[in-house]
C-alpha cells in the first residue's frame, strides 16, 4: 500500500523492518531525518535496538564495526564531512570484511561550505572496498536498503546505499513500504561468523606483513567482484517478493534502440527521462542507470553500450585536475568493445545546483550539435560569474 512519506522517514521505517540490533549515528544534514526517525521508533518501543548517539562520525562507524564483530546486525548513516571523518574506519571495516549497512545521504564537501546535494562524498571513498549502490528514486532507496543487508551478510562486505541528499531524502511522495513478513522472510537472523566470542577466541585486525598483505587485498578485490552475482540475485529475489526491481547492477532504460547513451548515478535520471518524454523533437537517448558503482560492472556495462555511437557520462562529482571520476572508468571498460562509443564526460548539479529539464538538451547539444565539446566539462557552470582568469 502506498503511503505519503518523506524519503528519510520511509528509510527509517525500512531500516527498522530490517531489525538492526545496533544503530550508531552522528547528526549531519541531510542524513538527520533518517536517524531521528530511527530514534523515535526505538523510543516508541517499535524497534528493539541499541541506538548509540555518538560524538563523531569516526565513532559512528567504529561503534557499528564493534557491534558487527560482536555478532549484531549494525547500521549507520552519514553524509559529506561525516563520510570523510569516518574514512579511515570505512577502509578498516571493509578490509576486515565486516558486514554492515550505511546510508550515505549524498552531499557536497567543504570547502567552501555547502550542505546541498552532489556525490563528491561517496566518490571520495570509492576505493574503501565497500559495495556502493546508487538509488535513482526513494522507492529504490527503500528496496535497495533491504537488499543491502542481504548482500552485506552473504558477501561479508559492507554496503553503502547512496541516496541523493534533499532531492530524495527530503522529498515527500507516495511510497510502498514492505511488510514485516516480507522483510523477515528475505533477511533471516544473522550472526557474523568471524565474530568475537570468548568460546572461540580469534584475533581480528592483526599486523599483516608484506608476505601476506597482497593476498589480503586480492581476496578482498575478488570478493567484491563476486558480489556482482549477489547484487543481481538479491534484486531478483526481492522483486519476487514485492514485485519491483531496482535494476541489479545497472539498468537500461529510455530508448533502447537509440545511438546516443547517457549514463547516470542517482536521482538525476528521472529529470532526464522527463525531459526526453516531454519533447518529442529532441534526439532520443538510451539511459544507463549505473546502480552498482562498486563493484564496477564492466561486463554488464559493455553489453548495455552495444550499438551506441556516443555515450555521455554525467556525474555529480569531479576529480579536480583530472576531470570526471566515473567517466574514465567507463571509458576503460568500453575499450574492450569491438566498436566502443565515443565517451563524453560531464559533471552537473554540484553543491545542489538545480538540475532542470533543460539539462537534457544542453547535454545532447554538447555532443551532437554544431558546437560539440571535447573532454571533461562542468556543463552547467556559469562562467560569467567568474573573473576572466578562471573562465
Amino acid at each position, binding site marked *: 500500500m502506498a503511503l505519503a512519506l518523506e524519503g528519510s522517514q520511509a528509510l527509517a521505517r525500512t531500516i527498522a523492518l530490517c531489525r538492526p540490533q545496533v544503530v550508531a549515528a552522528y547528526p549531519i544534514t541531510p542524513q538527520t531525518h533518517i536517524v531521528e526517525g530511527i530514534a523515535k521508533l526505538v523510543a516508541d518501543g517499535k524497534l528493539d535496538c541499541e541506538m548509540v548517539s555518538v560524538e563523531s562520525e569516526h565513532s559512528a562507524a567504529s561503534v557499528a564495526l564493534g557491534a558487527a564483530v560482536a555478532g549484531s546486525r549494525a547500521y549507520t548513516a552519514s553524509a559529506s564531512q561525516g563520510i570523510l571523518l569516518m574514512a579511515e574506519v570505512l577502509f578498516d571495516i571493509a578490509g*576486515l570484511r565486516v558486514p554492515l549497512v550505511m546510508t550515505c545521504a549524498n552531499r557536497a564537501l567543504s570547502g567552501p561550505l555547502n550542505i546541498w546535494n552532489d556525490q563528491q562524498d561517496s566518490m571520495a571513498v570509492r576505493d574503501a572496498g565497500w559495495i556502493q549502490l546508487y538509488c535513482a528514486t526513494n522507492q529504490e532507496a527503500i528496496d535497495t536498503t533491504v537488499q543491502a543487508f542481504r548482500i552485506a551478510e552473504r558477501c561479508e562486505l559492507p554496503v553503502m546505499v547512496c541516496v541523493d541528499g534533499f532531492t530524495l531524502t527530503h522529498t515527500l511522495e507516495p511510497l510502498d513500504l514492505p511488510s514485516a513478513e516480507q522483510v523477515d522472510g528475505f533477511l533471516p537472523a544473522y550472526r557474523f561468523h568471524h565474530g568475537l566470542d*570468548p568460546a572461540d577466541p580469534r584475533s581480528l585486525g592483526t599486523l599483516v606483513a608484506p608476505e601476506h598483505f597482497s593476498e589480503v587485498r586480492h581476496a578482498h578485490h575478488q570478493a567484491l567482484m563476486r558480489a556482482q552475482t549477489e547484487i543481481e540475485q538479491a534484486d531478483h529475489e526481492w522483486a519476487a517478493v514485492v514485485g519491483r526491481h531496482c535494476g541489479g547492477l545497472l539498468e537500461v532504460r529510455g530508448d533502447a534502440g537509440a545511438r546516443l547513451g547517457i549514463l547516470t548515478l542517482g536521482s538525476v535520471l528521472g529529470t532526464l527521462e522527463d525531459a526526453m518524454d516531454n519533447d518529442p523533437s529532441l534526439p532520443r537517448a538510451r539511459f544507463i542507470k549505473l546502480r552498482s558503482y562498486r563493484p564496477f560492472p564492466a561486463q554488464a556495462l559493455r553489453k548495455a553500450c552495444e550499438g551506441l555511437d556516443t555515450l555521455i557520462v554525467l556525474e555529480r562529482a569531479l576529480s579536480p585536475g583530472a576531470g570526471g571520476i566515473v567517466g574514465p572508468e567507463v571509458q576503460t571498460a568500453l575499450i574492450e568493445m569491438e566498436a566502443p562509443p565515443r565517451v563524453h564526460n560531464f559533471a552537473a548539479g554540484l553543491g545542489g545546483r538545480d538540475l532542470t529539464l533543460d539539462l537534457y538538451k544542453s547535454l545532447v547539444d554538447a555532443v551532437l550539435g554544431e558546437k560539440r565539446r571535447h573532454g571533461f566539462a562542468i556543463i552547467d557552470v556559469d562562467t560569467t560569474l567568474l573573473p576572466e582568469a578562471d573562465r
Partner: protein
Amino acid sequence: MNEQPLQSLDALRARQPRFRGLESGHRACQGCGEALAARLVTEAAGPDVVIANATGCLEVFTTPWPQSAWRLPWIHSVFGNVAAVAAGMEAALKQQGRATQVLAFAGDGGTFDIGFQALSGMMERGHDVLFICFDNEAYMNTGVQRSGSTPHAAMTTTSPPGAVRMGKRHMKKDILSIIAAHHIPYAATASVAYPSDLRNKVRRAMDTEGASFLQIHSPCPLGWGHDGSLTIEVARLAVQTGLFPIIEMERGELIGTLPIRDPKPVSDYLKLQNRFRHLFADAYRARKELEHLQAIANRNIERFELRGVGVEKYDTEGADTVHRGGDRWA
C-alpha cells in the same frame, strides 16, 4: 601429590592456577612494562571478555600474522577509535543479553591524544566498558615521540634537549582529573610495580556497572632509556617519589590512595632513565628543572595527602607553571 620436580618454564606455567589471556612468545622487548601490565590485566579479568585494542606496541608485538599471543577474542581497528569499537561491542552484547565484559586497551597516545574524543564519548554514554590505558608516556611504537602524557622536561625524539630546549616544553596531561569530570563509577591509577593492587583494581572495575578507567604506569626500557631488568624498580620509584600517584575514584570523588610514608627525591627516579639525563648536567637550567619536577611531585603528594593528614606541607611552588622564553627555557 605430584612430587615430580618442575624442570621447565612451560611446566612451571602449566602449574599456575591463573587464566592466561596473553600468552608468552609475543615479541615485546625485554622488560616491557606494557606486556607485563597486559598479562596482569587479562589474568585478573578472566576468560569471559572481549578486547578492543588500539594501534600501538601491544597490538604489533602480540599479533604478527599468522601468529597471535591472545587466548581471548580480540580486535584491533585503528588508532583513535578503540573506545568506540568497545562501545559498539558493549551495545551489541547488551542487546543480545550477554554478560561478557568488554575491555578497551590503548597506550597513552590512544588515550590522552588521538583516542581521547572517543573515550570521552564512551564514558559520557555510560557504556559498561573497562578502558585500560597502558601509560608509557610517549609514542613508543613509532620510535619514542612525545605525547600528551610525556612528563615535562623528558627527552623524546620530538622533544629533544638542545642549546635552547630542556626536553618537553609542556606538562603531562592530568588525564585522571579529566576522566573524573565524567563522574564515571570507577577510575583509578595503578603501576606494574604493584601487581596485586593492579589486579584488585581490574576486578573492582569489572564488578562496576558502567564505564570504568584504569591508567597503568608501564615503563618502556627502550623509550625511557633504562635497563630492562630495572622496569619494576623504575615503576616503583615513580610511585614512591609522588610523580605517579596511585589513587582510586568513584563518581569523580577520591576514595583511596597508596600512601607514601617517606617520599623519595625525584632525582632517585629520574637518574635511572636516559630520557632525563640532561637534567643532571652541571648547569643552572638543569638544577632549576629538577626543582620544578620536585615541585610537581610535592604537589601530587599534597593534593592526594599521600603522606597522611596533618603533616607539614611540602613546598609546591612552581608546580603549575611551565615557563617559555625569556631566561627560562623549558
